[in-house]
């Protein structure tokens, strides 16, 4: 396993474009996080301090940081599709196999890298959230701090799932740009399925249940939007805006199911192909 990760890391580290993208996908969420946590003084007119809104309180901070940080996954998604696309366009995939890498090892080396990267991103976001939370949060008892730490697990699963989807698209179309276009197509297809479900089931609610098992929507469902929750904390008497934002085991199971399927299909595709 270490050998496969080393092989893939050498391919990534020596490629300037992927190094830049990896750094951006790591640094950018932090910059945003840190900028939003400091007090910004607009030339003496007013000061903006997001911390005062209570969004950096434990446990809600876990929810908010993981939700917004997950948008930066698109930078690493580019790296994932290009690390497949480049192997095809440079024909180095063929050479790797001739040199004695098995097709299974090839797919695994990509997947391990995805898992490794997602793990790093999760740990870093976890640490940053903890530090900022400790600084701003009104509550610092251990039971409250670690109450919703499952959002970190959800974040990790979400990243692994999304990058595995990119891996599969990369394998499928062999070209990075087309693979990214497929993501957009899948997004549209999921909405089409949603509207079809509305038509057949008659209710929006059940249609959302159908959409909930589709890849992109199931990944999104892992960490629901936190804005409504912030509003909820401000107006606790308004019960009509209550919603279910928790991380459920079945949501994780669905995404892990897709992940397994995507990695397996990537392997099957490669196995069937004549290079």
């Amino acid at each position, binding site marked *: 396993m270490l050998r496969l990760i*080393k092989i893939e890391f050498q391919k990534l580290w*020596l490629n300037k474009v992927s190094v830049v993208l990896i750094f951006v996908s790591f640094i950018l969420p932090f910059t945003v996080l840190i900028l939003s946590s400091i007090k910004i003084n607009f030339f003496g007119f007013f000061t903006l301090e997001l911390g005062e809104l209570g969004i950096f309180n434990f446990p809600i901070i876990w929810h908010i940081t993981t939700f917004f940080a997950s948008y930066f996954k698109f930078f690493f998604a580019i790296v994932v599709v290009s690390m497949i696309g480049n192997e095809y366009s440079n024909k180095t995939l063929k050479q790797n196999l001739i*040199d*004695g890498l098995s097709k299974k090892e090839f797919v695994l080396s990509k997947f391990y890298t995805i898992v490794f990267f997602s793990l790093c991103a999760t740990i870093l976001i976890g640490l940053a959230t903890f530090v900022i939370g400790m600084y701003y949060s009104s509550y610092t008892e251990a039971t409250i701090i670690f109450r919703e730490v499952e959002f970190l697990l959800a974040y990790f699963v979400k990243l692994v799932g999304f990058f595995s989807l990119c891996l599969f698209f990369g394998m499928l179309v062999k070209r990075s740009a087309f693979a990214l276009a497929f993501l957009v197509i899948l997004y549209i297809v999921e909405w089409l399925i949603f509207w079809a479900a509305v038509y057949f089931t008659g209710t929006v609610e059940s249609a959302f249940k159908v959409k909930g098992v589709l890849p992109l929507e199931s990944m999104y469902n892992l960490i629901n939007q936190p804005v409504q929750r912030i509003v909820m904390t401000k107006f606790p008497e308004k019960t009509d805006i209550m919603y279910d934002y928790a991380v459920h085991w079945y949501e994780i199971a669905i995404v892990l199911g897709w992940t397994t399927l995507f990695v397996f299909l990537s392997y099957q595709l490669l196995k069937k192909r*004549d290079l």
Partner: protein
Amino acid sequence: MEPILTINNLTKKFGYLTAVKDLSFTINKGNVYGILGPNGSGKSTTLGIVLNVVNKTQGDFHWFDGTTSTHDALKQVGAIIERPNFYPYMTAEQNLKLVCRIKGVDQNKIDEKLTVVGLLDRKDHKFRTYSLGMKQRLAIASALLNDPEILILDEPTNGLDPQGIHQIREIIKNIAANGTTILLASHLLDEVEKVCSHVVVLRKGEKLYAGRVDEMINSYGFFELKAEKHEALLQVLETHSNIGNVKIEGDLITAFLNEAMSASEFNQLMFEKGILLSHLVKRKESLEEQFLQLTDHK
């Protein structure tokens, strides 16, 4: 003899096209093999199958004694297929390090192998700055990194300039001289003739011949003759039982042998008949002539 690669009844179909048809042959240790055949005869496909990049339709093959999996066996093989494929943004040395990681061998041979192909002084240059000849030489260095049991070369001189072709051939000859088994696929017959002891001849995916180069066709060779007494010589040739066909081009007579006969025996015979030869050369058919003869017959 120790087998390195055994192929049994291998078949590959691309849709309706059969690229390789029921092919069987064995590669033994220590010989230099050539796979001969015109373009599209299934050479590259066959190599692709045994190198794990093309899926077979039927039949089977195994490396060495058949106990190792193909991808593990490939770690003991060095192969170059068509064009050299490396990461353009890495230097020569970095590319070779990656190959070492894949093959699971130590990285201390990189400099040694770069010296063999004469690229040591360019090892810190990016692959994309290399000329085709240099790329091809780097590919050879890469294939040699694990001191392979067998070196597989598919059209190694394709697209190179005369100097490049010469350099590659010299390298191949040196490697062969060290006792490494080589499998060389080419449509360039003189290339195969210069380095190979054994050949497999393919046409449209079928095997026409597999065996030693000099036994490819039943031939005892031929004499090229010139003499002052042209007519007398022709008469003797026509009556002699060892001589088959006789071809005349100007004053040069080519006499094909039906049975073994040495040049000195023939010279002796002519001398006894009172014919003095001004030109006597005994030759065997070149591989090209043999190849054409073989492919025409079938």
